[in-house]
C-alpha cells in the first residue's frame, strides 16, 4: 500500500523476467507437442543465439595463422591453438587503448548528466504544477523517436562554431540531448506512480520542493534511476554513429577505431575480434550484473 508503485509496465516486466514460471494456459496449447520436444527445440534456439558470440570469443583467442587456416570450431579438436597473443597485441596498441579510455570518458559523463538533468525535469513534470505541463510532456513523448540524423548536420555546424567539434565534450553533449527525451519519459512515468499522499505527507512534514525531490522522490525512484543509468550507459557505450560524426582521431571511442580497421576484414580478424570483444566485455558485464534493471529499462523505453 505504501510502497511506491512503479509504472505498470515496469512492474509486469519484473514478473515476466524474474518471476517463477507458471503453468501458463497458453503453454498447454503446445503441451501436446510434448514437454521434451519443446525443451529440446528451445535449447537449440538458445544455442543458436550463443554460438555467434562464442565464435567471436574463440576467434579472438586464436592467432592470425590459425584463424586463416580454419574455423573457430577447430579448437574443439585442437585446443592448443588458444593463445593470448591477440590481446597482447591489443595491449600494445596505443590507438586502441586510447580509444577504450575515450569510450569511458564519453560514457560516464553522458550517463551522469542524463540521469541528473532528466530527474530534475521529470520531477517538475510529475509533481510541480505549472501551466502547459501537459503540452511540455507531449513534446517529450514526441521526441522519443526522433532520429539522430536530423541533428547531425546542424549540430556539426554548431559544434564547429563553438570549437566543440571533434571533442569528447561535443560527443557527450549530443548523447545527452538525444538521451534526455527517453530518460525524462521513463522517470516521469515512475515518479507519477509514486502515491500522491507521500508527496503531500512530505509537504506537510515541512519539506520544500527541493527536499521533496531529494529526500522522497529520488530515494523512492532508485530502481527506475538504476534502470535508466544502465540503459543509458550501454546506449552510449555501444554508439558508433554519433562518434563517427563528432569525434576526431584523438577523441574517437573504440567502436570508431575498430570500424577504421574494417576495410581489411579478412586480414586483421585477430585485431577486430579481440577488439570487438574488448568493447563487449564491459556492456556484457553490466548486463549480466544488472540484467533485471536493464531489461526493465529497455522495455520501459521501448520507443527509443
Amino acid at each position: 500500500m505504501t510502497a511506491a508503485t512503479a509504472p505498470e509496465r515496469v512492474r509486469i516486466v519484473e514478473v515476466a523476467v524474474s518471476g517463477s514460471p507458471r503453468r501458463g494456459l497458453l503453454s498447454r496449447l503446445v503441451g501436446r507437442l510434448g514437454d521434451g520436444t519443446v525443451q529440446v527445440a528451445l535449447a537449440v534456439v538458445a544455442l543458436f543465439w550463443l554460438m555467434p558470440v562464442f565464435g567471436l570469443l574463440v576467434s579472438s583467442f586464436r592467432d592470425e595463422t590459425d584463424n586463416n587456416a580454419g574455423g573457430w570450431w577447430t579448437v574443439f579438436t585442437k585446443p592448443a591453438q588458444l593463445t593470448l597473443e591477440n590481446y597482447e597485441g591489443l595491449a600494445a596498441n596505443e590507438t586502441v587503448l586510447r580509444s577504450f579510455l575515450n569510450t569511458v570518458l564519453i560514457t560516464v559523463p553522458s550517463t551522469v548528466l542524463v540521469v541528473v538533468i532528466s530527474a530534475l525535469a521529470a520531477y517538475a513534470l510529475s509533481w510541480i504544477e505549472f501551466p502547459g505541463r501537459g503540452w511540455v510532456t507531449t513534446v517529450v513523448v514526441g521526441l522519443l523517436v526522433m532520429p539522430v540524423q536530423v541533428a547531425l548536420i546542424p549540430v556539426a555546424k554548431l559544434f564547429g562554431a563553438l570549437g566543440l567539434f571533434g571533442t569528447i565534450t561535443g560527443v557527450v553533449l549530443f548523447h545527452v540531448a538525444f538521451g534526455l527525451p527517453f530518460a525524462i519519459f521513463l522517470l516521469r512515468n515512475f515518479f507519477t506512480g509514486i502515491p500522491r499522499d507521500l508527496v503531500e505527507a512530505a509537504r506537510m512534514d515541512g519539506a520544500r520542493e527541493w527536499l521533496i525531490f531529494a529526500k522522497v522522490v529520488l530515494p523512492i525512484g532508485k530502481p527506475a534511476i538504476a534502470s535508466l543509468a544502465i540503459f543509458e550507459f550501454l546506449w552510449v557505450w555501444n554508439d558508433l554513429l554519433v562518434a563517427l560524426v563528432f569525434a576526431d582521431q584523438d577523441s574517437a571511442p573504440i567502436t570508431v577505431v575498430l570500424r577504421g580497421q574494417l576495410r581489411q576484414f579478412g586480414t586483421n580478424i585477430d585485431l577486430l575480434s579481440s577488439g570487438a570483444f574488448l568493447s563487449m566485455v564491459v556492456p556484457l558485464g553490466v548486463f549480466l550484473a544488472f540484467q533485471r534493471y536493464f531489461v526493465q529499462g529497455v522495455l520501459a523505453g521501448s520507443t527509443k
Partner: protein
Amino acid sequence: MAEVVLTGLGKVYGDGTRAVDDLNLEIRDGEFLVLVGPSGCGKTTALRMIAGLEHISEGTIHIGEKVVNGVPSRDRDVAMVFQSYALYPHLNVRENIGFGLSLRKLPKKEIERRVREVAEVLELQEHLDRKPRALSGGQRQRVAMGRAIVREPQVFLMDEPLSNLDAKLRVQMRAQIARVQRDLGVTTVYVTHDQTEAMTLGDRVAVMKRGVLQQVGPPQELYDRPVNLFVAGFIGSPGMNLVTTRLDRDAEGRYWVALNSDALLLPESVLHQRPALADHVGEDVVLGIRPEDMEDVALADAQEGQLLHSVADLVEAMGSDVLVHFPIDAEPVVTEDTKELALDAGTEDLPSLTKGRDTVMVGRFSPRTRIYEGQPVAAWVDTSRLHFFDPETGSSIWNRSGDQR
C-alpha cells in the same frame, strides 16, 4: 493548540465543479470534530484545504489567531494522517516518524527522545528499525499516527485513517485514536464516510452533502434531532424507515397517521416538540421511524395507536438483536435526499425495495422474538420518537417560526 475557524469556505475546480460551498465551521480548541458524508460530498476537499494541500477558492481559514489562506502547508503547524498512511517506503519506522522533525533541523537527541516517546505510546518500540513494507496494516496505521503526534502540532487532520483496516482492527484502532486524542487534547478534524466512526469518535459531527454542510452537532443530537431527511437517513444503521403518509386530526383533537390499516397516534410530547406539525394537518408528510424504536408486540407493553400489522418478509438474526423486514402499504419516499443516500449505498439502480405501492420497513427487535419469515408481525412503535419531515423541502418539521431549532 488552537481553534480552527472556516468562514465561507468554498472550492471550485478549473472545470467549474464546485466541491465545497460556503462552509462555516468553528472547531474549538481541543475538540474532536468529525466530517462525515457520502463519497464526493466535499469533506476530504475541505480537510485538504485546512491542510494546505488544496488551493482555497473562497472564504478564509483561521488556525489560532492566524488566517492561513496563503500559508504553505509546512508553516501551518498541522499534521495529517492519510488514508493510505503515506509512509516513506525507503525509511524505517524511526526515520518515518522523525522525518518532519529532522526537516525542522531539531537536534538529533531531541528527535530520538520524541520518537521514542511516541513509539512507546503507540507500542511501536520493537518495530523502529523496520521498513514499512515489513509491517502489518495496523502497525502501519500506528506509524502514520506517530508521525503526526511526534510533531506536536496545533491541529491533527485525519483522512479516513481507518478505512484500510479490517473490521475488528478498525474498532480497536478507533478506541486508540479516541484515547490518544483525549490525552493530548489536540484539536482534531477527522474525515470519514462511516457514520459509526463519526458517532463514536466525534465530540461533534458535521454532516455534509454535495459540498454543503447539513448539520453539525454532538452525535446524539444528530441522531435525535436530524434537521432533514438526509441527516436522518445517513445517521443510524440500519437507516431510518421513511414513508409518505397523511397527517390527520380527529374530532377529539388527537393527531394520527394512517399506515396500512393501522393508525399511529401521536402523543402529546411529539406535538409539544414539533408545534409546526399543526400546519401540516390534512397534508402528506414524511414519517420516519428508526428500526430500534420498534419492538415485537409480544415483548412490549403496547397501547392503542402504537401498533403496525404486517407479515414478516425476511428475518435477520444478528445475535444481539433481530432485524425483521415487513412490507406496509404506504408510498415510498423519493426525494433528492433519499436518492443521494441510495447513491451512497450503491442501491440507486436496484429495483426498489417496494412491492407495488408497498414500502418495506425494518424493525430491530429483541432476540427473544419468536417471529419467523412468513408469519404475521405485530410491531409496537415508540410513537414518542416519531420523526416528521416536509415532503417538499425534506426538512424536519419542528418549530412554526421556520427556524429549525
